[in-house]
């Protein structure tokens, strides 16, 4: 007769913690957690000991104290009696300004250079290759310093514009390029509706409205083309949609320009764009444009040649092939690295202290840190700011990736 017996129940033994794969992961994680806590406790105790020996403590009260230094470029009101927190806000806005300007310029440059690198003109291809290789292989700090040196050493000083036969003249009597900065006309609204900031918001709102209306117009043209086969003209209508409200609003609110003029030894009036901002902006734009050119080229080359040939066999012209067939597919490959290049621009803008531009690293991480001696708090706030920007840009990239992901079953 056969006897049935239960299969042997494995009893838990302590060595299973290391040998049995069911329990081993818990053991490792437990050890990792203990090690992490031990490391933090060690570093924390050292920190407390050193702070006590130096007579310091961790507190953020210094942010409310008056800063005591001037910032020569600022987008919001600030003077030397404003608090350190206000100085930090000025730095944040300066960082965002130069990052935005550099991102736009770098994208334009990069796309142009990337497309030109694929042109069938040998000379243009080689020139763009030289541009890309030269700028990718030299550190960005050296380019920033070189362009800043060009601005300060090569451009004339305002004094050269004086006199009856000046050595330098203004461009169109509106723009002045000097070694202190570029002076451009400043726009303002004479008979504004609500106040200067609200006027600019009205302009911004009209631009946003024009964007959506023109998109609706293109959508309508698509529908008509699908239904009847004839596409109504959209270019002139869209141009009118963009320019019409803008022109009308500017005329209603009385747009005037204040021109810079040489008064004494310097220019007065108009808008001053300082050399440090221009140097940082152009250096970041040209440097990152080289990387974006390579991304664009890789994206367009990632589309198999069969797509181009199939489109050509349908009778599409080269311009239409690029717009309707290649670019929509290439954008899926181009945009994620493009967004990481935007991230790089924002992080590289911290090199502004090499040319004296007061971004957040210059105010909070530079003068405020040196004056108050609060190194840990300042560096922590600085890293928190950059981390917030990086994580938001990465979130945007993830949203885009999920939206255009190829949906596989």
């Amino acid at each position: 007769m056969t006897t049935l017996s239960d299969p042997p129940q494995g009893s838990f033994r302590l060595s299973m913690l290391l040998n049995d794969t069911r329990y081993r992961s818990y053991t490792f994680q437990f050890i990792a957690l203990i090690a992490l806590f031990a490391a933090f406790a060690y570093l924390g105790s050292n920190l407390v000991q050193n702070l006590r020996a130096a007579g310091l403590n961790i507190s953020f009260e210094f942010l409310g104290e008056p800063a005591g230094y001037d910032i020569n470029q600022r987008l919001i009101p600030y003077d030397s009696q404003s608090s350190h927190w206000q100085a930090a806000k000025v730095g944040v806005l300066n960082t965002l300004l130069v990052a935005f300007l550099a991102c736009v310029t770098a994208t334009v440059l990069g796309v142009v250079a990337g497309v030109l690198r694929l042109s069938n003109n040998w000379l243009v291809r080689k020139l763009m290759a030289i541009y890309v290789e030269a700028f990718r292989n030299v550190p960005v700090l050296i380019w920033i310093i070189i362009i800043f040196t060009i601005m300060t050493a090569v451009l004339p000083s305002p004094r050269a514009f004086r006199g009856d036969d000046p050595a330098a003249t203004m461009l169109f009597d509106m723009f002045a390029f000097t070694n202190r900065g570029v002076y451009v006309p400043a726009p303002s609204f004479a008979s504004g509706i609500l106040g200067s900031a609200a006027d600019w918001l009205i302009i911004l709102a009209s631009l946003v409205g024009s964007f959506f209306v023109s998109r609706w117009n293109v959508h309508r043209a698509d529908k008509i083309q699908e239904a009847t086969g004839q596409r109504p003209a959209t270019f002139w209508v869209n141009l009118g949609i963009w320019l019409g409200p803008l022109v009308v609003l500017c005329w209603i609110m009385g747009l005037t320009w204040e021109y810079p003029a040489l008064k004494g030894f310097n220019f007065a009036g108009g808008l001053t764009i300082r050399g440090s901002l221009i140097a940082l902006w152009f250096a970041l734009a040209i440097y990152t444009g080289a990387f974006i050119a390579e991304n664009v080229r890789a994206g367009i080359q990632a589309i198999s040649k069969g797509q181009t040939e199939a489109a050509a066999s349908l009778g599409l012209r080269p311009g239409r092939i690029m717009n309707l067939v290649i670019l929509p597919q290439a954008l899926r490959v181009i945009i994620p690295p493009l967004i990481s290049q935007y991230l790089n621009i924002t992080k590289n803008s911290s090199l502004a202290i090499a040319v004296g531009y007061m971004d957040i690293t210059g105010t909070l991480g530079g003068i405020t840190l040196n004056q108050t001696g609060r190194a840990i708090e300042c560096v922590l706030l600085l890293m928190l700011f950059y981390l917030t920007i990086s994580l938001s840009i990465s979130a945007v990239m993830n949203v885009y990736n999920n939206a255009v992901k190829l949906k596989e079953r």
Partner: protein
Amino acid sequence: MSDTSSQRMEPFVRHEMLPEQAPPSAQSGIVKWSRDNLFSSTSNSVLTVLSFVSIYYIIASASPWLFNGIWNASSIRECREILDGAVGGCFAVLAERWNQLLFGFTYPDDQYWRPTLAFVLLLAAAAPVMFFKYLPSKLLFFTAIYPFLAYWLIWGGPILSPIFALLGFVAGYLVWGRLVNKSFAFGFFGAIAAAFVTWAIGGAITGAVAPEQSLLSAVPSRDMGGFMLNLILGTVCVSLSLPLGIALALGRQSDMPIIKWICVVFIEFVRGVPLITLLFVASVVLAYFFPPEASIDLILRVIIMITMFSSAYIAEVIRGALAALPRGQYEAADSLGLDYPQAMRLIILPQALKISIPGIVNVAVGLFKDTTLVSVISMFDLVGMIRGPILASTEWNGVYWELFAFAALLFFIVCYGISQYSQWLERELATDHR
């Protein structure tokens, strides 16, 4: 009657081929090439003409400056006197300050042969790794002892320190070899324990026995500078961050949530901040986290932070490569009965590292360029030397272009060389033949 039959015309049959004629002059040679590549359409022709004009303009303005240079003067004023109004570069600054640009401000004059020898040996030590198919693999022994030799050459001090450091690694390797067959954990932790024991003993012996005047005089870290500092930071940080990056990448994609979250938080934090804030941490904040009596050199703190920075980027590159491997590789390793360390070591990592070589080289080149940022925290690397002691001195105040062009040229040569090597390596390792 006439004999017409003998004068009958025979049909013409050719028996040998006519020789080929040369193509028309507009369809061959450089004319055809130009028509196809430079002037194929109106817009192309316009672009070509514009390009020629700008190239001519650039060369016409740069070549007098380049070729009319002064190499033998002792100050910028003297350069200008010699030039007497002509356009020419004052390259004498490079000739006179060559050693400072390369080795830094305060490196002892008579010891320049040491870093130079270390650099030559670096090329000799890197060659068996870079060209591993063409050089005998015994040379890898020299690569293994090179870090210790280079440290001793550049920093000097008692020769017993690098010898015992090397012995610690050797002891760890031997113990690992004996114990790894039992289990990976035994091998790993046993090796670490053996290494630490050897280092502790070695440290005690060196402290007791070291002579007053060692064979190579000790050079303190604050005397390092110039392009040598960039090279040291670049090579040390990239080599140290490779194993750390691999560990972080493997941890990030592991199944254990705690380890995964530690790696994720570390990688995202380090990638989200600019390197200059990490250098600020290295110069002002990191000292607070070490015990009060330990005074760590600035260069060591900078190496720690740059290594952390580059290991996060390398971890992301390797994570992309691990994701590119087909899932079947992991499953095949499981079906062969390999445990996790064996599967990683024998199957997964060799393939993943091969895929990630271009990305790693990109990170390495980017890191080498980023080492110039240490000039912002007042370490005198190449850019720091140029902006600091050289441009601030009275003899050379105002010599911008020559110095910056020289710095750009040095970095261009190294970085372009590395990227060309990586493209060659990709072609060598490509196993698919299309």
